[in-house]
């Protein structure tokens, strides 16, 4: 059993955790829930030895422990699998699993045979049917995650912490992951499961702990609570449900490509499993590949993102840190980058930044705060602001709420529906069925690069959509 007692962690100017108590039981999946900034990551970083200055005690199997490094925590049997996986892309599965714990023979040389054998055994145990000599870069994200789990098994970890493990994998991969979690559970491991996806928690978790503003709000058995109840506890206030759809009467065709059509004032949901080609489709429209599309009935040749922007298209990319933000630049520089004049007009920038900070409720200490220090939700709002500033006719959003807390999520849904009401054409790509169903007027399903089905939102059900999303052969 892993117990945290009265943990308090201070950062300069902020109390990240206040008197947090947590009990984690073996053979159980313990869900840790809370909005972004609630303190989940901080708590896990303390348990896994990343932070070693804090108040309070940690008891592991009734013995007080304090880890000075992640290595010490790992040696004690606590492994953490971060949302952004810690794998070296150019090394093989075996080399990654044994990274830092290589087996050597009596000459001090690497014992490849031995390592490969052990790795193969681990992969088999996790039902990953891939050679241990494959490079990580050739694996899908879901498979890479299994390799991370294999790494923790090699350490003989007794506690495995998973931070948003399903944020980047498709629904079929989630099923595989859950099978593995159930097996680990039956072996008596302590699983800590951090996720924003409440429906998943009801499938896999046994216990829950809700954090808000650095405090534990409530802990309990998953059977004793509903999804609405959890949301209530997380946000501490009533959240509004998503938009009431209005009948789109004026079906004016706005965008037409080989694959899809988009009408004025419409929210088109695009669903597909990982690798279905959704992101590629958006990138093609946005000019990362040269292509010809029709906008308002006229043919436009799009050869670069600049052409797409001139044609009134905006793309909020899937990976905001990699493709959306200048992480070391400040809020103002990020918001203004798409609409600069040849000579910079400071006043216009100030007004623009103020406008979006207010209208999107971006929480930042000043225009000059580095965006890397903001929470995921606020970062996403900044990417949105930068694109809204270009006054687009067509807004494409790729996984707009990935890794974002419930409250910001509903704010973004509201914003999207308001924009559509004002006449913008909106494409939302998502791998969360609930999200697609909640916000779309029309839904198209993709599999293997093609559109396989189209539904009016009112008629579609989860199972209908999922059926079309699964590749046929």
């Amino acid at each position: 059993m892993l117990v945290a007692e009265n943990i308090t962690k201070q950062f300069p100017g902020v109390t990240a955790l206040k008197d947090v108590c947590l009990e984690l039981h073996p053979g159980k999946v313990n869900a840790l829930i809370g909005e972004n900034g609630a303190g989940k990551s901080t708590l896990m970083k303390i348990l896994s030895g990343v932070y070693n200055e804090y108040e309070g005690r940690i008891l592991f199997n009734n013995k007080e422990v304090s880890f000075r490094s992640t290595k010490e925590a790992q040696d004690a049997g606590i492994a953490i699998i971060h949302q952004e996986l810690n794998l070296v892309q150019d090394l093989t599965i075996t080399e990654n699993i044994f990274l830092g714990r290589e087996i050597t023979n009596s000459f001090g040389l690497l014992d490849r045979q031995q390592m490969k054998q052990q790795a193969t055994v681990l992969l088999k145990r996790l039902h990953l049917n891939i050679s241990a000599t494959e490079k990580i870069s050739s694996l899908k994200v879901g498979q890479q995650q299994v390799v991370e789990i294999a790494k923790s098994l090699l350490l003989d970890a007794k506690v495995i912490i998973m931070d948003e493990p399903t944020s980047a994998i498709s629904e079929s991969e989630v099923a595989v992951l859950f099978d593995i979690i159930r097996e680990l559970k039956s072996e008596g491991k302590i699983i800590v499961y951090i996720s924003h996806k409440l429906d998943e928690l009801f499938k896999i978790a046994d216990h829950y702990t809700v954090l808000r503003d650095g405090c534990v709000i409530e802990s309990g058995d998953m059977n004793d609570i509903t999804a609405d109840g959890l949301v209530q506890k997380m946000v501490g206030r009533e959240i509004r449900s998503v938009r009431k759809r209005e009948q789109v009467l004026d079906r004016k065709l706005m965008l037409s490509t080989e694959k899809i059509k988009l009408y004025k004032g419409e929210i088109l949901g695009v669903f597909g499993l990982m690798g279905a080609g959704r992101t590629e489709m958006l990138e093609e429209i946005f000019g990362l590949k040269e292509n010809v599309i029709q906008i308002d009935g006229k043919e436009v040749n799009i050869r670069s993102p600049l052409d797409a922007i001139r044609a009134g298209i905006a793309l909020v990319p899937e990976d905001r840190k990699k493709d959306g933000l200048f992480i070391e630049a400040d809020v103002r520089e990020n918001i203004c980058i798409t609409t600069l004049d040849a000579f910079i007009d400071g006043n216009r920038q100030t007004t623009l930044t103020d406008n979006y900070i207010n209208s999107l409720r971006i929480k930042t200490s000043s225009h000059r705060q580095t965006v890397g220090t903001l929470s995921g939700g606020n970062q996403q709002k900044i990417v949105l602001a930068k694109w809204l500033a270009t006054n687009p006719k067509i807004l494409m959003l790729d996984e707009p709420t990935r890794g974002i807390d419930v409250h910001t999520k509903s704010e973004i849904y509201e914003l999207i529906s308001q924009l559509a009401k004002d006449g913008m054409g909106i494409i939302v790509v998502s791998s969360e069925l609930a999200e697609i169903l909640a916000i779309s007027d029309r839904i198209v399903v993709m599999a293997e690069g093609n559109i396989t089905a189209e539904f009016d939102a009112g008629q579609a059900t989860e199972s209908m959509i999922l059926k079309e999303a699964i590749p046929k052969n």
Partner: protein
Amino acid sequence: MESALERQNYKQLLSRFQSLIALVILCVIISLLSDKFLTATNAWNVMRQISVNVCISVGMTLVIIAGGIDLSVGSVLALCGAVAAGLLKNGIELPFSNLYVGFTVLGTIVAALLVGSLLGAFNGFVITRFKVPSFVATLAMLTIARGLTMLWTGGFPVSSLGDTFAWIGTGWFIGIPVPVWISGIIVAIAIVITQRTKLGRYIYAIGGNESAATLSGIDVKKVKIIVYTVAGGLAAAGGLLVTSRLDAAQPNAGTGYELDSIAAVVIGGTSLTGGKGSIGGTVLGAIIIGVLNNGLVLLNVSPFWQQVLKGAVILAAVIIDKAKAKN
């Protein structure tokens, strides 16, 4: 609590002006040890000497902020100096004819700047079109430009270039040496570009996150080619200053200048990973290196020790910067 806050502000102030403070301390120490240091003649002398490095380093700063590096500046400097000297002295024979074209001083200046810019543009083209890492592309150009310099000069210096040309490197204008005017104007323009223009923002954006820059509609290739072209042009300007001051184009001029220039950029606080840095910092960095060189000469320190000390200063600057970033 208040005093902690004050201390924080004080610390911030200190770290912001860290290079300036280092420079002042350096000056105080040298002036205590040598009475020749703090004289107007010596000050102008130092300024004149560093103006070449300032020219090159402005271009280098832009390249490094954009996430690249330019190792070819020293060779490009030599080639452009040689081109200017050769054209001024001998003119050029047009191929397949018996025509000779002579060059005025202005003509040679334009020609040298053109050659430098073209070589820079070529760097940028290779880097963006063929995705060759800037380190490799400009390393190749370092060798190519040096080879071309040897071919152009036959390996011998081209000297005696006339008083008008010599004025660029040795003359005075309103009480200030001409090279200081030239480098000062270049610095002023570069500061305006980096701080106040769209191009400047784009340079930072590309160095900060190239993928996000592309997706924000920035023409990354164009901006990069501009940056390398400017770096080449500024190396040419440096070449003109050197050639004019010595009244001769030496075929092995500028050897190792790329390293002095990178040192100035780094001491000035620009990150080699791109996206961060400033022209002002680089100028300070160049002055620190210049003052250090000058001071050590005045104090009769062996040139070998000068190199060791210069290296130590570069290391110290980067280590302090890293420690600062941690806080």
